């Protein structure tokens, strides 16, 4: 009986590992002039953003493009570190890391440096000495937030009564996107927060939050949701109550991440604004590696271009190009 339980537990763990992704699709064979890269990323199921990010990387780091890439996905920092050590033992040429957590990487990065492996960080930063990595490609969440808030300011409303739906508290995206808005609200007397709640990236919870505001009878004219799912949930609540929104509506809806559906809502005029959080980092990475191979120097911190889309100006091409 106990044995069976133990066996089952083992099965659980194995499954859990499988669930964490194709555990390092091993690139054992030393390629013929191929550049060997080990890519450590977060779980592709985490969000549409991550899915797009992973797909982009997979499409770029191919044999055709001169790479032999091994991928590893985990949401757990320690698992990522363990895999990084393994990549170092496997003698990859480049280690590309999107770290789940910011701490604990020093020893591994030092080991990589000693082994002559070049480390490039993407998407997430690490609390480590800058000398330990070649470059870091990041989204500036604060900048994203600022772009969005500047856009909102440009609408020149008499008063701003804002429902602020936050992402999971403490995440970089939440901090950056909330920060810009908080600053603006504090600075302007006609900017009011009706409610500021976290819906933890979930459409369902966002809908509930907006519903509770509607039911309480408070007036509002802006919904600032920190991702598209939550904006969508908020829209569902407005629709149920028959409150108009979007281009010609009473309520401005703002979202982030540029999901295809979100951009389509913009195109239709259901939403007003969507901020990009650029998942397409492979191009940047490719560029840096090419430069390093040639022996050129690279910029230490590269902040990606991130757009904000407006329902007035968005085009069908934008949807196709930037939708994830």
């Amino acid at each position, binding site marked *: 009986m106990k044995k069976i339980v133990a066996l089952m537990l083992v099965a659980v763990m194995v499954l859990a590992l499988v669930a964490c992704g194709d555990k390092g699709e091993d690139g054992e064979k030393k390629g013929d002039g191929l550049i060997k890269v080990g890519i450590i990323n977060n779980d592709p199921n985490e969000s549409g953003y991550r899915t797009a990010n992973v797909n982009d990387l997979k499409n770029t780091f191919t044999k055709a493009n001169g790479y032999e890439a091994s991928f590893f996905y985990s949401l757990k920092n320690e698992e990522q570190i363990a895999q990084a050590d393994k990549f170092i033992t496997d003698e990859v040429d480049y280690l590309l890391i999107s770290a789940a957590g910011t701490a604990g990487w020093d020893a591994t990065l030092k080991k990589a440096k000693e082994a002559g492996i070049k480390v490039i960080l993407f998407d997430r930063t690490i609390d480590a000495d800058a000398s330990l990595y070649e470059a870091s490609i990041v989204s500036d969440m604060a900048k994203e937030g600022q772009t969005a808030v500047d856009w909102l300011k440009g609408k020149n409303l008499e008063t701003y009564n804002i429902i602020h739906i936050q992402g999971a508290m403490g995440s970089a995206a939440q901090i950056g996107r909330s920060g810009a808005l908080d600053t603006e609200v504090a600075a302007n007397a006609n900017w009011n927060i009706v409610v500021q709640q976290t819906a933890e*990236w979930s459409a369902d919870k966002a809908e*509930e939050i907006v*519903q509770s505001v509607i039911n309480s009878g408070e007036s509002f004219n802006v919904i600032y949701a920190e991702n598209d799912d939550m904006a969508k949930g908020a829209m569902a609540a407005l629709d149920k109550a*028959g409150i108009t929104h979007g281009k010609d509506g009473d309520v401005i809806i703002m979202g982030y991440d540029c999901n295809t559906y979100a951009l389509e809502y913009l195109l239709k005029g259901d939403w007003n604004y969507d901020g990009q959080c650029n998942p397409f980092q492979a191009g940047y990475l490719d560029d840096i590696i090419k430069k390093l191979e040639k022996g050129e120097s690279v910029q230490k911190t590269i902040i990606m271009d991130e757009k904000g889309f407006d329902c007035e100006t968005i085009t069908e091409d934008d949807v196709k190009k930037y939708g994830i």
Partner: protein
Amino acid sequence: MEENKTPEINPEEKKVVQAPSKPAKSLDWKAIFGKMLHSQMLIPVVAMLALLIFNLVNDPSFFAIKYGPNSVGDNVFTGNLITIFDKGAELAILAIGMTLVTAACGGQDISVGATIAIAGSAILRVVRGSEISPDTLQNPLILGFLVGCLAVIACGAFNGILVAYFKIQPMVATLILFTAGRSIAAWINQNQLPNIKDPTFGYYGGFIPGVPIATPIIISIICFIVIALVLRFTTLGLYAQSVGINEQSSRLNGINPTLIKFITFVILGICVAVCGLIKVSRISTINYSSVAKDIEMDAILAVALGGNALGGGKFSIKASVLGAYVIQLLTTTLYTKKVNSAAISAYKAIVVIILVVISAPVVRELFAKLKVKLSKKMARAGKKVA
């Protein structure tokens, strides 16, 4: 134990003994009160009343229900009370299945959140056909729902076999799908995020044109009726309790405990499929990692709030469902009061602590003693008056 005189004060016994000695006039009230006091419904009813009274005192407009057009011009009901029944639908439906599993297996299924993701993903996979975000349904929704049902019934069967046949503790057995379920859900759609633009797809999480009541409310009522009929016209309830209380003796009475446990998991699977449909219909898309997140804990809490023993045995689905709505009422109240939603789980934790404490034998005994003292005092006072 050999004697009849156990310290547990048996409600029926007490009633029988007390009833004749009371004057006829107050007898009814006393009996009703006594029955209430010992009923399983006590905790959820008191909790619900407490929350309702809080809202009534705090802000009577909480109870306002509006009737007005929604964005497509249909007149519909909105308001906090509607929100509670609308948003609480999934939890209430899950509570049905969770109660049965708890009763028969003496444990809980913690994979329901993940299997809701699987159901939702399967439904989307079918209705989206070969496109990722089709404008119309590529396959009939009923087909999608049936495939979703099959998928989660398979999950339920998997859990059921582990629990019933291999006799693994439910929490451990369902841990497998708890961990892997959301990845399976993502795999079903190859990590794509389908978005169904066909408005009919949104009916099940929103409104059917011409019907003023949110569809999840209607779906949940249908579920309650179905389960009530199942319990009325089959012997499942008795068997599930019997297996949960004493598996060995159930077997010797001709019941097949393995089959009963398996059936409860399959029923839970159907409940999960219904929840999956509502969830994906609500937003016409799915987020594999956040859909129905932590709902398993709420479902278990609903069962506990309903006064059901988490170790199995006697159960009341009514009480669990009421428990589910209490949780939703609490959530909605906290949203209305603009309590930070991150803190809502802390409030739920407080509820759990209170629950656990008042259902502890020590505290119950204390209450019983208190009651005896009070009644003695009252009797003495009565004598003096006489």
